[in-house]
């Protein structure tokens, strides 16, 4: 990611009032994670899998603070169980920011499943999402995902793809 795209993500998170980010690092966002770690206004929590991160974000919601789950889109699959329980069972929302692995242009065979499953899994969970491939749309997409999730009390997602991450 270019430094300007990293800045746009952090601006979006701050605009949305996020003070805690749970993440499991990946390669497409590799420049983002140290920038989040270094930001004095954001506490980062590194997790062992994304489902655990989703559950921690759910707990942060209950505290009145705002959290985001940042991950590769493969982490969506690891998060399905807590997302379904918290979102559909209790109305506890999690806002996710994920890198779009496996989209057209992907050159790693192992990332193909991530692209094929991302949208069907989001649709199965009825999670609205926006795929952002232009840097100038990042900040607004993140802020709008939070607006929606705090109206619906349900999960939402922003996937960053194209030249934003490659």
């Amino acid at each position, binding site marked *: 990611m270019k430094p300007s795209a990293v800045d746009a993500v952090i601006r979006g998170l701050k605009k949305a009032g996020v003070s*805690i980010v749970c993440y499991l690092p990946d390669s497409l966002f590799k420049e983002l994670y140290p920038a989040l770690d270094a930001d004095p206004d954001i*506490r980062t*929590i*590194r*997790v*062992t*899998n994304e*489902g*655990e991160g*989703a*559950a*921690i*974000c*759910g*707990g*942060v*919601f*209950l*505290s*009145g*603070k705002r*959290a985001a789950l940042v991950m590769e889109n493969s982490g969506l699959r690891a998060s399905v*169980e*807590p997302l379904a*329980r*918290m979102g559909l*069972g*209790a*109305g*506890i929302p999690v806002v996710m920011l994920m890198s779009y692995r496996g989209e057209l242009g992907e050159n790693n065979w192992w990332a193909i499943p991530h692209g094929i499953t991302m949208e069907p899994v989001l649709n199965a969970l009825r999670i609205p999402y926006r795929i952002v491939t232009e840097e100038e749309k990042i900040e607004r997409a993140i802020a709008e995902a939070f607006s929606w999730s705090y*109206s619906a*009390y349900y999960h939402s997602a922003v996937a960053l793809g194209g030249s934003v991450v490659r």
Partner: protein
Amino acid sequence: MKRFDCMKALACRLSDELVILSLGASVDEWYNAAPHMRDASLFQQQLGCVSAQAFGLAAGLPHRRIVSLDTDGGMMFNLGILATIGNEQPHNLFIVVWDNECYQSIGGPPTHTASGRVDIAAIARGAGVTRAYTARTVEEFDGHCAEGLAAQEPHLVVAKVSGTVQPDIKRKHSDGREDKYIFVRHVERTENIVIMGPSEHN
């Protein structure tokens, strides 16, 4: 040792704390064992994310003591949270793991701890939660409650309880959504904050 007796001992020590709990009969037992904590308890039906949610709540409300009432099945479902708690060292999180060595709510098939080889407290210590213990009597358990509620680092107690459920207890009628609203309104009231506020007029 009966889980209900342990719950009553813990309940006596609680007033301002927030509690997140797991699934199955332990939910109805806590509802009866700690009637004064009903609004302050998030009743869930979840396997594997109770202590993670409790940690998130502890991170968001660092001045408030958070109690996680987890289970052997739930903790084994997501052991990674122990490593995250071990690394993050929340100073306000007390974790109880009700270990009845079975999936009691579906009739009692054994969990991994029934073998006698799997020790959740030892796993927790290995994950960096150094204050992790196993209690086999109510007195021992109560001592850990006293310590865990005052500790300045994460404290975990595995309560080895029987697979029986307290008879004739009142069943909770609310679902997860109603429980969330009750809990959130309690947090809003006691913290003087807004979590689920009014819609905009536009």
